[in-house]
């Protein structure tokens, strides 16, 4: 194999691993935003889940149990966000930033006082396909939870676009007053969307910890939640483009990490900034092609 192909393989492999946690969380954030919540606490969901997954894996000895715990913890953060912003109507940005600070503080403290150890789920490799040139290793030698995406992405799409639940939450995100008139419980749907968001962001965070890294360190998500928000914006509130965004962001990160090792000079700041720049540019340039929910980040209260 030529060196170029080998380099490409390395970069692709690492890109997919870096994109996977984003993709899980983006499936969640996408649903929350379609329902009208601009959910900044996705960072807290991922970080809390990353911590919880390693902690529970340590307690039970099962990395899979850890993964599950991550899902539950993410959903817990989602339910807190939901209660605060769709029961008590606190500004969603405020809730998100506060929850992020809270979870960062808690996990940082806990990881400092206790040794959580290393726990990691098994790696699978698909016989035959893994030997494909260039794409074989990146796509077919993975920690198994990655393949959950194959089910979760279509499921997310189906839930939002085809199920009654999704129809109702889209209505709640676009025009909560009309939805309310029709008999849809707007704030309930929004809280449910946040639960889904929490579960998937939790899965993303847990995957990062017990899937890729195998341990937890302080602030290990390091702003990936904000990247997820950028991905949804970059994707113009469409699931496919959002996932493309995750892939691009993962790849940019992989390039940043790999290129210096391969002897290239690279402007790492530009690569780190790329997602945020792209998200801002998408909002500035493609306003007409977007599906921005009409009532995004607006709390709903029935006028009396």
């Amino acid at each position, binding site marked *: 194999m030529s060196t170029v192909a080998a380099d490409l393989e390395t970069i692709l492999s690492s890109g997919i691993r870096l994109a996977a946690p984003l993709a899980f969380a983006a499936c969640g954030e996408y649903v929350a935003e379609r329902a009208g919540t601009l959910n900044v606490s996705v960072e807290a969901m991922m970080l809390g889940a990353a911590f919880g997954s390693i902690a529970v894996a340590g307690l039970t000895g099962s990395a899979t149990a850890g993964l599950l715990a991550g899902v539950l913890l993410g959903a817990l953060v989602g339910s807190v966000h939901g209660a605060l912003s769709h029961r008590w109507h606190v*500004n969603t940005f*405020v809730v998100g930033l506060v929850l992020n600070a809270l979870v960062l503080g808690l996990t940082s403290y806990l990881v400092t006082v206790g040794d959580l150890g290393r726990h990691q789920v098994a790696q699978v490799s698909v016989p035959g396909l893994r030997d494909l040139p260039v794409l074989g290793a990146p796509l077919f030698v993975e920690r198994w939870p990655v393949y959950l995406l194959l089910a979760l992405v279509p499921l997310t799409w189906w839930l939002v676009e085809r199920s009654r639940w999704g129809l109702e939450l889209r209505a709640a995100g676009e025009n909560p007053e009309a939805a309310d008139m029709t008999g849809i419980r707007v704030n309930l749907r929004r809280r449910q969307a946040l639960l889904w968001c929490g579960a998937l962001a939790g899965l993303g965070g847990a995957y990062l910890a017990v899937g890729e890294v195998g341990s937890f360190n302080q602030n290990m998500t390091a702003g990936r939640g904000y990247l997820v928000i950028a991905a949804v914006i970059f994707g113009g509130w469409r699931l496919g483009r959002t996932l493309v965004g995750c892939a691009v962001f993962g790849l940019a990160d992989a390039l940043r990490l790999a290129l210096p090792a391969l002897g290239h000079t690279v402007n790492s700041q530009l690569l780190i*900034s790329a997602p945020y720049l792209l998200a801002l540019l998408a909002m500035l340039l493609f306003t007409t092609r977007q599906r921005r929910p009409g009532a995004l980040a607006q709390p709903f209260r029935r006028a009396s």
Partner: protein
Amino acid sequence: MTRTGAWVSAVIVAAAVVLPGLLIAVTGGSPAAALRALIQGSLGDATAVSQTLLYAAPLLLVAVGACCSARSGAFNIGQEGQVLIGALAGAAAGLRLAVPGPALLVVVLLAAALAAGAWAWLSALMNRLRGVDIAVSTLLMTFLAQQVVAFAVTTPWLLQESRLGAAAALPQSNKLPSRALLGSLGDHPGLQLNLGLAVGIVVAVLVAVALDRTRWGFRLTMAGLNPAAARHAGISVTAVGGIALTVSGALAGLAGAVLLTSPLSTNRLQPDISINIGWDGLLVALVARNRPLLAIPIAGLFAVLRAGGNFLAATGVPPYLVDVVKALLTLAFVAPAVLRRRSVIA
């Protein structure tokens, strides 16, 4: 405030006190000792008080700015980035401009305020041109600001330090000349009152007067409370919001310059010079319900937690619990505000 609201607040405040104690106890520490250390490290002696007051200054500046923008309805949450841009511009001015004498300090502070104000104004511009949500764009631009600063301090032809000899240059700028640094107010034994705090308090009072007593403040408040009525009354809501956002960014930038030129930093521009002052300052404004004068004691409280938290680390308790306390306190003050059927942010 409704009864439920009061209850929710009380429960969260209780959690803010009990939860950290519980965590310390469970992990084998002594909550009482930790509390003593927290107070010792922030208010225990003149040195501790000096440290607390040092932190209070930039927190207050950020918070006062946040009061302006939130009241105008242009909700800025990108103060952390604006602090960084302020520090960057301050460093550039302090290191590159040949201004004689202590006037350099004034130039540093002004440059920081101008640059960060312009940075925040970009969000107002994007909002005006394309309707980009201000909270979203200020948030995203925070991460850009971090990279801009990182780039500046790792690029020799920009601000990276110049080293003679073989030692590799670190990702930081040169030290600012001492005439560009904030000095102490008066001469007190042991106690140091940094000029930064004076700047913060003066700004807080000025902004409080401006918001509550001037035509500008009246217009800004109206635009935030009811944009339609404001427009009818002859107020350009986008312009007022843009100005408030710029002021908010400028004050965050000023906080960045205070960080750079006070003993809180090594007086060099470093990528982590903002030490989360931007995020914390926003929380201060939220707890103070967007009232600049109320932000003075709240900034003091947050500064106590910060200085005490640092001291706590020296006694073996990880300081992060302080962040938990801050977050829960903010939650306690934010949640019931809305139970009164009014939103926190205009």
